[in-house]
């Protein structure tokens, strides 16, 4: 009913020269709708019928559906990271500009380079301005608001264009594109080789940079907290395991000692200690390594009455 209603309304208002929307049945091949055609013996399976109906949607309607799904995925965070990446990238970097160009330049045929430029460039511009628009709302732009706004903008633009532009089933357009753009095996090998080389370069650099940890070091800390309490800690960022001895003193007297703290690379140790007379006299922490037990490796101190403010 809604299809028929929309069609009749469209035919009343459609401008001269613009092709009105056709009903789904109008899109059937002539042999299926002509008077000589025999009625189908059975109803087609539900899946086939659904595929046929989806295939009859216009390119803009199909894009609208995809944008709605992508917006849902990004806003809810559903699906795995790869799916979110595949949904989010075009939602921010391609679709808003695509919709805006279609709105601003109705019926313009654009070359591939111009299309890519306008989709990408205008999407970036809209993404930049989306922050400004959201900043002046109570919700701000800290969470999923920017992609939601861009998704809604795209959907609104697509809805307007879908009503305005002549209908062409997306499945037919896609089939034509597939036929003309299908690469040969030679192309696939060359393209695959180039992509593999680039991916290898990136993956190798990620691995190489992760191995680069510099000469290695050990972090030691002594942080005063309220009421003469101290946070003490060590972290070994060297390439090998090490054993440390720690001695905490206050007013020249040993308050506490940790004789052997062994840490593997990347491992961290922490402890809390209380000073006997609060923070009045201050405190010092000396850290020694097992291989040089007499030499202070790290030395920290809290000034009298300092640090707890």
């Amino acid at each position, binding site marked *: 009913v809604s299809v028929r209603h929309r069609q009749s309304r469209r035919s009343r208002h459609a401008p001269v020269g613009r092709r009105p929307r056709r009903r789904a049945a109008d899109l059937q091949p002539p042999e299926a709708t002509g008077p000589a055609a025999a009625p189908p013996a059975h109803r087609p399976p539900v899946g086939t019928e659904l595929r046929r109906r989806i295939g009859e949607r216009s390119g803009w309607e199909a894009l609208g559906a995809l944008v709605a799904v992508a917006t849902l995925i990004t806003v809810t965070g559903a699906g795995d990271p790869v799916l979110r990446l595949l949904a989010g990238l075009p939602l921010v*970097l391609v679709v808003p500009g695509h919709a805006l160009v279609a709105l601003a330049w109705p019926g313009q045929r654009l070359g591939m380079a111009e299309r890519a430029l306008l989709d990408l460039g205008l999407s*970036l511009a809209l993404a*930049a301005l989306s922050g400004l628009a959201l900043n002046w709302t109570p919700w701000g732009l800290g969470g999923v608001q920017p992609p939601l706004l861009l998704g809604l903008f795209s959907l609104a633009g697509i809805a307007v264009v879908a009503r305005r532009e002549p209908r062409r089933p997306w499945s037919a357009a896609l089939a034509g594109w597939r036929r003309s753009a299908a690469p040969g095996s030679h192309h696939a090998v060359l393209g695959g080789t180039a992509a593999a080389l680039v991916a290898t370069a990136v993956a190798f650099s990620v691995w190489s940079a992760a191995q680069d940890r510099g000469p290695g070091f050990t972090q030691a800390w002594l942080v005063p907290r309220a009421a003469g309490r101290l946070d003490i800690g060590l972290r070994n*960022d060297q390439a090998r395991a090490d054993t440390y001895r720690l001695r905490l003193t206050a007013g020249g007297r040993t308050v506490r000692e940790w004789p052997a703290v062994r840490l593997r690379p990347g491992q961290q140790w922490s402890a809390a200690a209380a000073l006997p007379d609060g923070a009045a006299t201050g405190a010092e922490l000396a850290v020694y390594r097992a291989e040089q037990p007499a030499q202070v490796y790290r030395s920290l101190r*809290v000034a009298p009455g300092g640090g707890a403010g």
Partner: protein
Amino acid sequence: LERTEPIPARLLTVLVASAAGLLLVALADNRARASVAGAQPLFWAGLLAAYLPLALLALAPGVSRRERVGALVSLTVLLSLVKVLQQPGALTFYDELAHWRSLLDIQRTGRLFTPNPLLGISSSYPGLESATAALAAATGLPAPAAAATVVGAARLVLVLALFLFLERVTGAARPAAAGAVVFASNPRFVFFDDQFAYESMALGLAALVLFLEVRRSEDGVPRAGTWALLAVCAAALAVTHHATSYLLLAFLVLWALVARVLRRFGGDGRAPTRLAVLIAVVVVLWLGVAARPTFAYLAGGLAPALQQVTAIVQHRGGARHLFQASNGQVQPRWQQALGLGSALLITGALGLGLLRLWRERLDRRRQAPLVALALVALAYPATLALHLAPDGAEIANRTSEFVFVGLAAVLALAIDRVWPPRAWEHVRGAAVAGWLSVVFSGGTLVGWPPQLLLPGPYLVGADSRSIDAAGVAAATWTRDRLGPDHRFGADRTNRNLLGTYGGQYPVSDYNDGVVTAQVFLSPAFDGADRAILRQGGVRYLLVDRRLSTARPLVGLYFEDGEPDTRPPGSPIPRSWLAKFDTVPEASLVYDGGDIRIYDMEALLRER
């Protein structure tokens, strides 16, 4: 979806060769990280292998437009990856960290315009960070990956827009592709323009505005719709970068003036007067609403350079030593030769291109933008002279992208002349290949410190080469153990790390008017130092003792205008950095070996 042809096999073959060059760059980076010899030759071989085949394909005669576009897109992507390979998954350039802070503030507060302690002006131009925040929220990508994606997309926009703009201005795809290749050879394209900074995105938006302006004058293009697109781009540009929007406005005014003058001599090109008015209105509006500190910021950068240039002209000031870093390190002879060769070849080609522009009759409609671009290109020799002033070199480098837009148009005419489209002449092709190689590699050496072309061990005051695991660990420790938003004093590298990884508020003369550098650059901790810390409310001091091992590569330990108190030609004495150990009010709360953090809370409490 449009019908399209498969990608030509020749383009794919060239792409394989260039991708192999990128792999060589990755291998060179790996050798440099391990300080293994041979990294430099491998890097240059890889960089040229990535650049040259695609550049030549883009501008060679007898190549289809589709191949040219494919080569330009591939070239842009591969050259963008050169910087990514150096520090994958991290933001390490000086400006990148400042803009990352703005992005972190947006993600943390959900609001724009949060004061940025690393680069105050950045929060007044949040276009780049807004777009990156949107992408990060949509994809779940970490900030560095989202940043690289946005900048990469902006660079694609820049090169495609420039190609399509020049195609309409010159009337053919080949000179347009040659112009885009010349632009991609500018000294800042490989590294500086690929960083996460507002200019990287603004350049793309500005080029898109130029393209839309020439597209507007074509038949069948809806006027109102085009104005809507221009308004969106102009607004995005105005909220993204100050200098780019001003320079675009200046170029449009120049173009309009040229068009009016040419009309007297029979030209019939349209003047972009209305677009210039639109850009001016948007820029002024943004200045009034949110970006009032812009003029003070720009004046702070320009004034010293202009003073130095004036002093050199009047023989009052000392000129800068070319090819010598601020720490006295001199570039090898072959690098000097390449840098000079690049400038000479560009100047020679500029003359040839201008001659061709003068002699040949052009389509009248295209005269005005082309002449305006030629006038911009004439600024190139002046930027070479700026390299003689200590602060002028920075300005010369910063303007190179803009001057190269003009050079792109003029040099494309010169290339067309040297390598005419009549036949694939190998000798001429080889000459152009040699010319491109020297211009590209020499320009890259001039536009970016050679020590920063490759990763490697820690260097003092060397921006990305000063960032290592020790500095990042110390900054991260402050966030985890002390909590965010403490006021810190630190050198320029650790200030950036504290402001990003640490979430702290580093205090500086530049942003807060508090000369914290003085505290580090004095032989003893005295009353003046105490007064500075109290004035700035500086709770913590981060001291990197490695600063005493060498003079800074970029000429600064802390910030512009830091006190010149250290012994001439020497690094900071070690005792100056160790003096805090004996300050009674200072608590040494963190010791990472080279990096120490002092808590000055007892000092502040004495107020």
